[in-house]
């Protein structure tokens, strides 16, 4: 029999009433999505872990102090908190460190894939490690739109409003991000084309 999943809304209500287990379920459900979004912006797993903690602490305080707007959905809300903290950090400290974990391994060692053989997991790890590296190389505005649309599930209209541009500019940035990814993907790792396209200003 298929297990019925408790909705985010029910979990949030239960947590506000003091059910810690409900919050554990929410954290477990969205920890990777929140963390991935932050890592893609700040490019550093140590910083990303700190920002992830800050994100959830902000959420805890808002929920526990009765300031959560129940009309909104939990995931877009917490992703927005994560995004704002990550962007604040990124703009404050524009750094490009190597992405490594505490044990010294590469961040892609923790990439997760569903129901694949070990061989296909290895192939996917390599190809997605490559794609992850390419995302890091996108111009900032294009990377921002890509992350907001793809990982934070914001509409292009919402992205336009959040970034203070027209919807066509937001769409144009996404288009150039995809063009640049495709262009870079067609090169080998030894012959990156460093001339990335930027959208007309």
């Amino acid at each position, binding site marked *: 029999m298929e297990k019925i999943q408790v909705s985010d809304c029910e979990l949030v209500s239960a947590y506000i009433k003091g059910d810690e287990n409900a919050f554990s379920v929410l954290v477990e459900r969205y920890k990777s999505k929140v963390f*991935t979004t932050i890592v893609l912006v700040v490019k550093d797993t140590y910083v990303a872990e700190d920002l*992830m903690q800050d994100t959830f602490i902000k959420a805890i305080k808002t929920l526990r102090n009765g300031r959560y707007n129940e009309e909104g959905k939990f995931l877009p809300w917490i992703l927005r908190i994560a995004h704002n903290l990550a962007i604040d950090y990124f703009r404050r400290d524009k750094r490009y460190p190597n992405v490594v974990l*505490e044990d010294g391994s590469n961040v892609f060692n923790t990439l997760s894939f569903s129901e694949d053989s070990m061989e296909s997991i290895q192939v996917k790890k390599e190809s997605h490690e490559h794609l992850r590296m390419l995302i890091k190389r996108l111009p900032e505005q294009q990377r921002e739109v890509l992350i907001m649309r793809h990982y934070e599930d914001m509409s292009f209209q919402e992205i336009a409003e959040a970034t203070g541009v027209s919807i066509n500019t937001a769409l144009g940035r996404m288009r150039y991000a995809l063009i640049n990814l495709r262009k870079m993907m067609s090169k080998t790792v030894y012959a990156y084309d460093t001339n990335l396209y930027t959208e007309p200003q």
Partner: protein
Amino acid sequence: MPMTQTCTQNPNDVIRYLYGETSGEENDQMEELLAKDSGLLAWYLDCLDIQLGLNQIEVTPSAHVVNRILDFSRSYVAE
């Protein structure tokens, strides 16, 4: 946003279509355009391929940070 027939607009419309932001009517128009325009179809397939790749990227935080969050929640007293 109405779908237009210009070269500049169509690739943007493909992106809206890719991310499910087009209306039913726009979907029909886009599917007709894709059937007629091999260049646009190639662009759509490229975008789809990248989108599938992006879907596979997921990074998991350490158990340590998750435990710190849960510990904070348990000890937090509302203001």
